[in-house]
């Protein structure tokens, strides 16, 4: 790989994507290569967290505040100084971070928690049934049991 290709990669402007892709790949490696079931579940959790952070980082704007309007803007809207009719305030969209990725990722966090809970309960049943949490031992026992197990 020549250095011109490396320089083209623009790591500094895309640093958030690089960090979260590395995190995603750590989670993916844990899901694929680890033998213990609990370690696989932790890999799944890391993968989900990396995707959530990836999406939230897309909505960041330079020098922007959090997506909550300041208290004095609301106060001025409800109690206008001189006039009698309240005028809706003029809000600049570039002053506030994009709220849409935050909202979508709230749903993703909740779904991730639910999935982890159900996966842990299934893992407990597997342990009660086969007395092991290592994937290779469970595969051997499943093949041994075959069709004559209740």
């Amino acid at each position, binding site marked *: 790989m020549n250095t011109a290709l490396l320089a083209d990669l623009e790591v500094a*402007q*895309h640093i958030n994507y690089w960090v979260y892709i590395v995190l995603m790949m750590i989670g*993916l490696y844990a899901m694929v290569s680890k033998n213990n079931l609990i370690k696989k579940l932790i890999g799944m959790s890391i993968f989900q967290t990396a995707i959530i952070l990836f999406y939230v980082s897309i909505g960041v*704007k330079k020098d922007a505040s959090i*997506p909550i309007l300041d208290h004095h803007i609301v106060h001025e809207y409800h109690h206008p100084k001189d006039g009698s009719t309240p005028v809706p305030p003029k*809000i600049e969209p570039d002053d506030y971070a994009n709220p849409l990725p935050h909202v979508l990722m709230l749903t993703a966090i909740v779904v991730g928690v639910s999935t982890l809970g159900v996966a842990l309960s299934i893992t*407990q049943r597997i342990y009660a049934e086969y007395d092991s949490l290592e994937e290779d031992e469970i595969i051997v026992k499943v093949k041994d049991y075959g069709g004559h197990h209740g």
Partner: protein
Amino acid sequence: MKFLGLIAVLITGGLMLLASNDFPDWADSESPANNKADLSQKYVTDTLELTEVPNMVTAVLADYRGFDTMFETVVIFVAGIAIIAVLRPVNHDYSLPQPDDEDPDLIVLMTCRLLIPVIQLFALYVVAHGHHSPGGGFQGGVMLGASFILYALAYGLPKALVRLSEKRAITLAVIGILIYAGFGLATQFLGRNFLDYGVLYKIMPGVETEAWARSHSMLGVEIGVAFTVTAIMFAIYANLSTRGRLDRGL
């Protein structure tokens, strides 16, 4: 096997990193997600006028995308039911070693006695203040459920089950979903679309404009979500820590 997994992960990661070169820059205001999509700009500028809620994230979550949030609440509820269904012993009892009984520790008891009411009060504040500060139904519900889990950790699970038994927890979760769906049905009976909160100003006492009706309906809906999340968080903990039998705690 591990080596093959490593090769696959490295190839995938490398391809994704090469593809990320074409993505918009970090913190770019002109990126397609931030600028060209008129929708997110409208969410920022029009939320205070149309819904009287300063927190744009809560407004989008509970009002503009309220249908999605309702089914998200149903997802949590189904996860709690699924955990109970998977773990509950039906025919035979498993022969697993039982944890030994211990007396509750004095320091843990005294500390939790001080902490639990404060946590619950703060959780209710987070639910109620979702309009003006980061918060809302999910965040407050998780904290309220965590306070019950702390009670179970300190005093033992049987004592916590006296206060929030499984029947009460599932009933609370169902009431939360029915509150949310009830708001939607109320708007349908008044003639508009499902979950179109604006029309509820006709039946709410003391509310004149549609914007204030939307703000108060958002609070009602978030309370329903908090009920469901609290109950299911505690039910998940109780079932996972006792392998479905709900007899002894950790």
